[in-house]
């Protein structure tokens, strides 16, 4: 029981990170109907930017932890947003309206580029850091097994919920959110009604990349070790989460992220750590066969 509770806490934390990445996939897919393969790598770039900012701030002599973390988060989100914008501008915009496979190949190319760019510039070795927020609270101690809820886990859940609240407000209440929803429903019609669709798509990539950078920031702090390859697997799992929740649906992405996180953690705890990725991918296959629109997705009507 205590063991299961601990796994639940870990699973929710991991699920929050996947959920944040999944939001970026689902937004882009909803609007232009392509898998942004490079999104997982933007997440990886975000965690590297956080690492550099943390080390840089420490070198500058900023010792206040909350200030350093806030600055790091802002810096990583801002630069990652610039990466998102550049990726869209360079690799996807020239191919808009082109045939279906071209943007996908271009996205795969961009993913390889980002991965190897970071490998070349920062080295292939893993980057470990010390725990920035150590400690936590002990929820209960039964039969010699203590259930720990670390400050870091609380911070991850709080930051994710805050960011998602801001994001939900952005999508539902602001003019930008309205144009985004309009583009998602019908890109051509939105353009006819005077919406600058190119700008809206750019902003979608910018927001998605910033969210991925927040996820990368939390990944770095939670695990304390990153390398240039983390984006690939995390990216596929986040996409799985987006599909599971119903692609195009924002609450679905978070829900799917939580589910994937929980499945992965419980599978590792009770079955085998080696096959945890197999479990996550099998869920994807099963979900697509029995629930092709996802949990919260809309059924697609095919017009002939």
């Amino acid at each position: 029981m205590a063991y299961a509770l601990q796994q639940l806490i870990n699973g929710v934390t991991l699920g929050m990170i996947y959920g944040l990445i999944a939001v970026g996939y689902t937004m882009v897919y909803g609007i232009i109907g392509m898998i942004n393969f490079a999104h997982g790598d933007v997440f990886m770039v975000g965690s590297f930017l956080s690492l550099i900012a943390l080390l840089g701030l420490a070198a500058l002599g900023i010792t206040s932890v909350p200030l350093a973390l806030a600055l790091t988060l802002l810096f990583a989100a801002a630069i990652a947003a610039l990466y998102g914008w550049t990726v869209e501008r360079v690799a996807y915009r020239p191919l808009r309206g082109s045939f279906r496979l071209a943007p996908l190949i271009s996205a795969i190319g961009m993913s390889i580029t980002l991965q190897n760019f970071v490998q070349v510039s920062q080295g292939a070795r893993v980057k470990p850091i010390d725990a920035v927020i150590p400690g936590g609270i002990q929820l209960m101690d039964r039969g010699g097994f203590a259930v720990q809820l670390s400050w870091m886990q609380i911070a991850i859940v709080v930051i994710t919920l805050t960011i998602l609240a801001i994001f939900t407000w952005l999508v539902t209440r602001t003019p930008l959110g309205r144009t985004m929803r309009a583009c998602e429903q019908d890109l051509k019609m939105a353009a006819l009604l005077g919406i600058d669709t190119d700008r809206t798509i750019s902003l979608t990539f910018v927001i998605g990349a910033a969210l991925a950078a927040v996820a990368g920031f939390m990944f770095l702090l939670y695990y304390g070790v990153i390398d240039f390859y983390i984006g690939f697997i995390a990216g596929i799992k986040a996409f799985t989460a987006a599909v599971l929740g119903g692609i195009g649906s924002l609450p679905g992405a978070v829900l799917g992220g939580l589910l994937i996180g929980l499945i992965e953690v419980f599978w590792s705890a009770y079955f085998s750590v080696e096959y945890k990725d197999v479990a996550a991918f099998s869920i994807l296959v099963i979900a697509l066969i029995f629930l092709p629109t996802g949990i919260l997705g809309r059924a697609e009507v095919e017009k002939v």
Partner: protein
Amino acid sequence: MTPLRDAFLSAIVALGLCGPLVGLVTTSGDRGLSIHARPIATAVVVGLVFLGRLAILSWRGRTRAEAVQANRAFAERITRAGKYVTPVLLVAAVALPFTGSRYYIDLGTLVLTYIMLGWGLNIVVGLAGLLDLGYVAFYAVGAYSYAILATTFGLGFWTCLPMAGILAAMWGVMLGFPVLRLRGDYLAIVTLAFGEIIRIVLTNWVSLTNGPNGITGIPRPTLFGLAFSMDGGSGTFAGFFNIEPEVIQRIIFLYYVILGLALLTNWVSLRLRRLPLGRAWEALREDEIACRSLGINVRNTKLTAFGIGAMFGGFAGAFFATRQAFISPESFTFIESATVLAIVVLGGLGSQLGVALAAVVMIGGLEALRDFLSFLGDQMNSEVFAGIASELPLYRMLIFGLALVVMMILRPRGLVSGRTPSVALTTVKEIAPDLVAQGRG
């Protein structure tokens, strides 16, 4: 916006992008990570972006309509030239071992392996229009089938080759069943997940596959029972023909094996295209609903495409295992799937010649680039370049990724984008690329 101003803005964006990642490098030392500044490298990258943007802007003087027309003219030229290019390529492929250079034969073998994989995937993606991102799984199944059968039961290459193909085809059908209902990107992501699952299982099922250490000592193929060993006994190739045993004989033999396998793949897919099955594939790519209305069995059509495509992947895998004599899960990563898919798409989806040309450009180009980079590394002995030179081979994949993006932007429909219909009433007319659907899975 004037070009200068545009380039200046690009340079500022590049500064924002590269400032933190290139300009500040984290290195591990005794007391954890430390951070160093690299202003010169950053300045070089930003300067390159500035000049590159200026060059692009001045080169892109022509209008879009002109560009489209030039593209179409190029496509027509290359299709017309296809009649002469194909025999020339074939003769060159057959004659390559007579150069006697081991380097070129090895490179040729590598290129031919990718051509074969490309032609195999072409059946799935190009003809049937099913987007498969996990093709490497069948390559792995073929390689491991041969390796395990050969090392456990002592079977030879030619006995195992059909078995490897059949096993891979069975896996293809097994994967095909659950994903029959999926389309487009969903299909892509499921096949990608399937490829990863196979790789994870190969890594972790140590008792069968020896895990990450891989399988060693995989036997080499024989020529009608004649082995290519160095002892020169009567049962060996050299002993039978009374010549000095040399390593190059085996290399050349392997080259002709893969050439034969690749040509077999090509021949089978060309023949299949003329059969009702192949025409059903192409019809499926164009419009699935129309196919169903016309009474084509969509399920069987998709499964045969998956199965036959996977079979050729399995053949190529068995060849890979026998050529390397060593396999490990590391050879079967997503990057291989991406490379093969890129070859098919760059080749023009469905064009046999296009796939061959694309494989030569991408694999040969990549190898040529590697040579060029290491040559550059050898030449630059000066201290400034010593650091860059040692890292140069690392840039290979970076350039590969950028090349994928650039090629897609310049030629989104591939090198040979027009289609020649398999069957025509009177004269065969080229179909313009704009009229060919790409399938939605």
